[in-house]
């Protein structure tokens, strides 16, 4: 396979172009995704290449973007809708949660909704209000909807392809900070990375760190410091699909290490960390040598840019949690 270094933006753009090439049923819709190529340029040049019929701007109305996408998906198209920032998902919660995620259920399989909703999320880039929020935890109680969050360009491309191939709706959240933070050798050709499978980014023996999105590099940096300062071997697991979780990967790792830290930007209460902790509690409590630690955003609104760095998990915060769970 021909590979080249790509940013996550380039990898996603490449994935979308391949989908449009591969399958006549694929259409892209959203705000500013046409000539402008999206506010982050994920859809750059796609309207020029594939035409306005298949890549088009919509009026500024999130609920109708999802609602009409459901109609298109039921009809037999493969819509990929962009919600410009994840904070705006609140404006289409009804269509996403009560309609897209339920149409297979309410029709006993007569209709389905193969829809991908892409949305940028995540903090640390000094955006205005509600442009940095992490909403994945909100969707843990949305049966029928999968939630995918890649941490690197290779996974971003392969997971997006898998999301488009999935017969059910997928919320695909793209971390804004990771969009251009590094390049990674990524194949030009089509490939998929399976949904529902976590990935061991770094194998270790003493403690498991579960993270996703922009928290994967934070966890890796903390793991490096922990190795140096505490002499411990940290296993870092990228969850990749945050709903439903890869429970087997979580349990296998904790059974090996006996200690666990969960890291995410989203608020703590009732979130992915809470669910990972509950899974450990239910399935491998007696493997635990210490209580599970959570390093997360706080249970406050996402703060304004001037103080947002204090809100976000950092390597120092993760390192402190590692120290805590490593105490004898």
């Amino acid at each position, binding site marked *: 396979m021909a590979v080249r270094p790509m940013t996550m933006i380039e990898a996603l753009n490449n994935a979308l172009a391949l989908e449009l090439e591969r399958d006549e049923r694929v259409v892209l819709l959203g705000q500013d995704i046409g000539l402008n190529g999206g506010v982050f340029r994920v859809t750059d040049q796609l309207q020029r290449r594939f035409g306005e019929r298949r890549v088009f701007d919509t009026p500024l*109305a999130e609920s*109708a973007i999802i609602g009409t996408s459901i109609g298109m998906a039921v009809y037999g*198209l493969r819509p990929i809708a962009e919600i410009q920032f994840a904070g705006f998902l609140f404006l289409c919660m009804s269509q996403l949660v009560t309609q897209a995620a339920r149409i297979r259920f309410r029709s006993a399989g007569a209709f389905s909704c193969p829809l991908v909703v892409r949305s940028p999320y995540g903090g640390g880039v000094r955006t205005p209000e509600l442009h940095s929020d992490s909403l994945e935890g909100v969707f843990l109680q949305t049966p029928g909807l999968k939630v995918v969050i890649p941490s690197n360009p290779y996974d971003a491309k392969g997971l997006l392809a898998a999301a488009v191939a999935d017969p059910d709706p997928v919320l695909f959240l793209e971390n804004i900070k990771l969009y251009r933070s590094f390049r990674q050798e990524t194949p030009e050709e089509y490939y998929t990375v399976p949904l529902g499978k976590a990935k061991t980014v770094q194998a270790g023996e003493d403690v498991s760190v579960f993270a996703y999105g922009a928290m994967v590099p934070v966890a890796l940096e903390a793991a490096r410091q922990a190795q140096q300062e505490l002499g411990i071997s940290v296993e870092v697991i990228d969850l990749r699909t945050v709903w439903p979780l890869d429970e087997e990967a979580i349990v296998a790792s904790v059974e090996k290490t006996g200690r666990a830290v969960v890291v995410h930007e989203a608020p703590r209460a009732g979130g992915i960390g809470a669910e990972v902790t509950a899974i450990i509690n239910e399935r491998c409590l007696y493997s635990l040598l210490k209580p599970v630690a959570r390093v997360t955003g706080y249970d406050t609104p996402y703060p304004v840019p001037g103080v947002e760095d204090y809100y976000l998990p950092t390597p120092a915060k993760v390192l402190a949690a590692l120290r805590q769970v490593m105490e004898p």
Partner: protein
Amino acid sequence: MAIHQIDPGLVPFQILDPDGNLVGEMPALSPERLLYFYRTMRLARAFSDRIIAMQRQGRATTFGSLTGQEAATVGLAAPLQPQDWLATSYREIASLIVKGVPLSTLVYSFRGYTPPNWPAETRCLPYQIVIGTQIPHAVGLAMAAKIAGDPVVAVGVCGDGATSEGDFNEALNFAGVFRAPVVIIVQNNGWAISVPRHRQSAAPTLAARGIGFGVPSALVDGNDILAVYETVRQAVERARAGDGPTLIELLTYRIGSHTTADDASRYRDPAEVEAWRAKDPIARLQKFLRRRDLLSEEQDEEIGASVLAEIDAAVREAEAMPPMAPDSFFDYVSATLPPRLQAQRAELLRFVSPSPAQPQSGERH
């Protein structure tokens, strides 16, 4: 012509007056077709009465009365072709019947179960419970038809209450911007549970909403099946010809309570109900047909008996269908059941055994 590019005005389009007199141009409809309309309206009313009676007997769950709205709901579905899509609320059950959804499937749904065999080929979405959410779906179906280049039209139907929802307005806007081959129909029955029409909007008509979205619109007497049929037919034709969307307001009235869980006498003046009973849509067509010698008294009685027999058979069939299995709500959450849900299903099955009525073939619904 009922459809107006700009202002639908304040006078509803009418072909039959409340006494069944022809006051407009008669649409091209054969006597057989007219009798089909009449019979289906009677079927809808008897069906509504039957499900309400079954609810009182504990044989059906909550049901919203269809009475008084038969001309609107039969008339709006009649011009559709098999390839056209229909997205409705629970108040348009008669439209689904016209489009080919079997009565027994509907009865089964009102027993509190998901029909295992929803007829996707009728291109009817299952009737929507959440208000107004089906209108963007109809617009999306129409956008898809246009993208695919298919000669397919979508119809979305909601009530007057739904016009206050964001989804209705966002969808109407999309319909206009994308010139989608869609017909958006509002059954204005005067009441959203207990909230009257004037509390939904200060605008004199809901059809006028089209002006603001650049969507041609029509105001129609919704108790006049000929006016409903003819207006929707023109709108569907416009859409299929590539001339874009139409908004149609059908003025009708909910004679019954909102649902079996509601008591309209708490909030509604009986005189208002009586005034609308005088404009009954079935009686109107009946008078017209009688006067034209298209319906004898004998035939009329036969129709009454045959719709009851049809409903009896459907109820028998639906009540003979096995109940859903206790663990059936794990089916159709997603195309494949994730391990987590497999485990939860097994957890439930430690407490309940699969229904004895369940066929042994392994087929479940």
